[in-house]
């Protein structure tokens, strides 16, 4: 039996031998300290542990307020500090080194450190979270710099650090100059040309979407993994699965998060869950500290470094992952309980070149207000129809923000996420395709919290649209090269789904207002811009485009039987105007603050956790 705090806890009846045996196994597999395994795999609450330490004569010190002698810290690797939860504080000058440890009774650690530092060790107790915070702050610099610049170094062409390249600026300004010059030369004709051209583009993009959605709807009931296959899975053969949970100031959601993780049908010891929190996010850190029940995740503190984005945090988390597969969830996500098993089964079934599987996303608070209903319709058609359609056409799939499951080694090979791209997931989807790997779609859903507040919605959407613009600019730096990598089909698919999405939102209010000004005011000066045939085309595009978009949204209700939402699809033209506002905001930010991460506030829903869980169960049924 190891000599450690947990062993002593057994002695006073606060812990069990059975649990310790389980912990031993986990600690061995992950190369963690026992106490880390106990606190992060749901065996022990921090409050109980702190009380025990206190009673045992190890009151916690505030390690964050201590003066640290960094010469000792520099002799330690971050991985070791993080795994064994200790931090050398300072030497007393008389041959004793004070070390803050989460488990001050760990004799194995003591002897290891005495050999390492060739000095006597005096343990003081400190909170594991504070130690984690400190070690990452003090020793995380190399890792965080790698997280930010690694992709840029390995594959500069795919990095979004440079938003506009010189040739791109040249093309854009040439186009603008040419358009202005021609408008000066022949305003009416060029205006008509641009109007018809862009309305054509608009309609074509929508028709293409309809085509993809129809293709996707053929696979509506196709189950890539069946329930019987899930039942047949032998738990002992399952690999370690990493879940990354990047959060920022999500203190209110921590409890919910734990419940959601607990409902996952996957062996507890094989879930390597990482809660990635930013260095300045004491709110979330304290929420974890104050939990009344055992946490089933490990906290990783991401040291401060610009840009402060989710992909940077995820890249940082990658250095500490232990799994064979990896997925990302948001704090409020409620995945189907069998999702991870389904992914494992599907990866086993699919050819080796499939390196990512995207799960469907939907919302548990769909009926909260008009915005959540529209959001639900949009996500339903996107994930239930468009993604399978794209997969069937074998074109790049822009990954969704969460519930994308990777083969960890391949993800590392791809260079992780681009920290400068604010839709790093969509970008990664294209990069996967560029490297001739494939993205699949798994028949499992994660329920999220739909944004129910318009300003919050615009913030979130502006980031997404800005990210699509960034992704387009990055991958279209060399179109010929891109065609070579992903073929013509992939090239068009990428441009229609990623490139044209912001363009259609930017164009929509312009085309609409020109047309409405003409129709309502019938001004003489405007009439000249709408000769008969242009008017014909404009009316056609306006009515046909909007009708088809409404139709697409209506399709969305069928798979999930959200029949009560179908009439709300009629509001799509208004919803698009909201998109347009977000698109212009995104464009403005692309120019002035390209890497700025518009934070979406979560936890605004009034829906209780139990209601969300009911929604999840209904969804799975």
């Amino acid at each position, binding site marked *: 039996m190891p000599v450690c705090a947990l062993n002593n806890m057994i002695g006073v009846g606060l812990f069990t031998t059975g649990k310790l045996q389980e912990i031993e196994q986990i600690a061995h597999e992950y190369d963690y300290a026992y106490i880390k395994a106990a606190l992060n795999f749901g065996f022990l609450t921090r409050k109980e542990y702190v009380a025990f330490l206190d009673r045992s004569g190890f009151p916690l010190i505030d390690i964050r307020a201590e003066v640290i002698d960094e010469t000792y810290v520099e002799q330690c690797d971050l991985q070791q500090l993080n795994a064994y939860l200790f931090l050398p504080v300072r030497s007393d000058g008389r041959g004793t080194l004070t070390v803050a440890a989460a488990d001050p009774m760990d004799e194995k650690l003591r002897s290891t450190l005495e050999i390492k530092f060739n000095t006597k060790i005096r343990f003081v107790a400190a909170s594991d979270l504070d130690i984690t915070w400190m070690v990452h702050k003090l020793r995380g610099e190399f890792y965080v710099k790698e997280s930010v610049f690694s992709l840029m170094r390995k594959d500069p062409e795919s990095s979004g650090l440079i938003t506009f390249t010189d040739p791109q600026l040249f093309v854009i300004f040439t186009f603008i100059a040419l358009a202005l010059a021609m408008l000066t030369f022949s305003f009416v004709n060029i205006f008509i040309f641009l109007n018809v051209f862009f309305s054509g583009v608009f309609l074509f993009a929508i028709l293409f979407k309809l085509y993809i959605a*129809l293709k996707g709807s053929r696979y*509506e009931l196709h189950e890539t993994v069946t329930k019987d296959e899930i039942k047949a899975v032998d738990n002992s053969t399952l690999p370690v699965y990493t879940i990354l949970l990047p959060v920022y100031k999500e203190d209110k959601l921590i409890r919910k998060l734990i419940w959601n993780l607990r409902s996952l049908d996957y062996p507890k010891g094989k879930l390597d869950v990482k809660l990635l929190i930013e260095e300045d996010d004491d709110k979330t850190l304290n929420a974890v500290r104050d939990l009344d029940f055992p946490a089933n995740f490990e906290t990783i503190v991401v040291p401060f470094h610009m840009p402060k984005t989710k992909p940077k945090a995820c890249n940082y988390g990658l250095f500490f992952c232990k799994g064979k597969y990896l997925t990302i969830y948001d704090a409020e996500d409620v995945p189907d309980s069998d999702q991870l098993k389904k992914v494992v089964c599907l990866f086993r079934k699919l050819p080796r070149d499939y390196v990512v599987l995207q799960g469907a996303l939907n919302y548990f608070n769909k009926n909260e207000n008009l915005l959540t209903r529209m959001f639900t319709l949009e996500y339903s058609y996107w994930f239930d129809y468009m993604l399978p359609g794209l997969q069937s056409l074998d074109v790049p799939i822009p990954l969704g923000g969460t519930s994308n499951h990777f083969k960890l080694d391949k993800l590392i090979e791809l260079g992780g996420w681009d920290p400068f791209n604010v839709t790093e997931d969509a970008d990664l989807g294209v990069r996967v395709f560029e490297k001739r790997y494939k993205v699949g779609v798994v028949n499992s859903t994660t329920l999220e919290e739909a944004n129910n507040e318009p300003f919050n919605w615009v913030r979130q959407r502006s980031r997404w649209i800005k990210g699509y613009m960034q992704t387009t600019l990055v991958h279209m730096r060399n179109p010929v090269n891109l065609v070579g990598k992903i073929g013509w089909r992939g090239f068009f698919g990428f441009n229609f789904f990623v490139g044209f999405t912001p363009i259609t939102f930017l164009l929509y209010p312009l085309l609409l207002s020109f047309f409405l000004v003409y129709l309502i005011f019938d001004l003489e000066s405007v009439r000249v811009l709408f000769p*008969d045939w242009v008017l*014909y085309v404009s009316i056609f595009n306006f009515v*046909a485009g909007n009708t088809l978009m409404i*139709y697409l949204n*209506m399709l969305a209700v069928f798979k999930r039987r959200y029949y009560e939402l179908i009439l709300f699809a009629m509001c799509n033209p208004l919803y698009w105007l909201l998109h347009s506002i977000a698109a212009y905001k995104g464009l403005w930010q692309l120019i002035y603050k390209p890497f700025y991460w518009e934070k979406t506030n979560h936890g605004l829903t009034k829906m209780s956790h139990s209601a969300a869980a009911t929604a999840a169960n209904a969804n799975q049924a």
Partner: protein
Amino acid sequence: MSLSNAQIRIGSLLLVLYYVIAAWLFHRNGFEHSEALFYTEKLKLLFEYPDNTLITLGTTFPTTMFIGAVLFSPFGFLFAPIALTIVMMASLFYNMAVDLNNTSLPVKSMLIVLAVMFMFHPMFLYAAVSGRNVAAIMLFFYLLFRSFFQYYKSQTTYYLSMASIYLTCLIFTEINFIWMLLSFFPFVVLISIEGIKVTKGEQVVFQYYQALNNRSLRRKLANRTIALYLILFLLPLGAVYLYRTLNAAHAGDATYFLTSQYANWRVTGTISLNTILDNIQGNNVGKQTQIVFQTFAILLSPIFIVSLILFKGKLYKLFTVLTPLILFSIIMVDVKYYFTVEYFVIINVMAITTLIYLGRVRINTVLTSWLLIGGTVLSVFAGAYYFSESNDPEERQFYNLANTPSSWLQPKVTTEAMLLAEYIASIASDKRPVLIDDASAYGIIAHMPGLDGLIIPIQKSFVTIIENPTLMAHYICVAKKNNRLHNFTVLNVYNVGLMRANLGLTPSRVYETENWIIYSVQ
């Protein structure tokens, strides 16, 4: 036994060849359907007249037929509509033959059914060689109901969407099919009931009772019914709304495509009941009343009766099969004109669709095969009977020609429209133009080698010239009183009389046929 796709393709090509020969025979014997000539004339306007292309392209109805004819225009304007209908019929055959893989019935017998129907059934032959919209109706009707049956099988939204698209095509082929909106109602409600969670295993009546009386289930039922309805009808209704808006913007009238004789052949082409009563020929019109019409349509299609005998499925499937009969009831509410072959032929199409998707062997395969073949042969004779009793002169002409094989290889018949076209072409020039109104004279213009020397309504000056033809026209082509279309044109004998009285016009007759007179007005 099943046929490979290559074999079916060869069969379809042979069918095309067969139809082309049949069309050639009918054409040389003087059978040219006025609807086909209407499309031909519009093609000429589209390709040979530089102005108002948008009006011609955008308002000519039925859109599917006209746009289809545009695609086939390289084969010649006269042949384009017929080529289109031939290809549509071959495509229908191809689809049905491919779908035979789904049938539970003996495939050999079903192949015989298909072959006999497509080659010898007069309605099918008429649909292929007439250049009318009948072939398009049959094709889209089949695709529509096939989508429904596939939806029943797989419960996948894709098939509902496809049904919606085909319904749009069907409506843009024949506007009366918009009333499918109502005729779908029974089976859509039944599908909804089927889809909600009522106590399975209970009697159907009890399930319906539960669905209608439990508050929560009733709400679900209403939501699902509305959802199904909307997904089926949004596209067709949106398309019709769009088309109306475009017509309102460009022709000043939202219903221009339905009511203008310049846009829609139906305005002049259908035979009103009054006309039939004035000049009774044929006997079918007498059956145009509620219930009798449906019964008559079923009797004309014994294969449909066979399909009902071999039918096996739930109630909503049966209601789906009966949809055309419900449709008849709805459109029969306001009968204004004689219903021609398209309304009868869809019963045959429905019969074949039902056999393919819902037919089951009864008693034994031999009896089932005999039933199928017997029903088919009787249907062919019933089809011939329909034509022999038809009140539509062009359908009767088709029947008479088909029924007298001895005339098939007689010298080529020159029709009245051909004669007139030839004469007008010989006199018309830019200096001596002919005023002609294509509202009724589209058949003549369709045979003209070009539009030079003609003053037609598409020209802006037409309205002025019609007020006083002597201003610019040298000749006018006038519909005589016995011309069935004389009421649809301002260039008729009545108006010529007015011109004589008001303008002092002294026209001299230079050419006359049974229905037309050409006057010199200078």
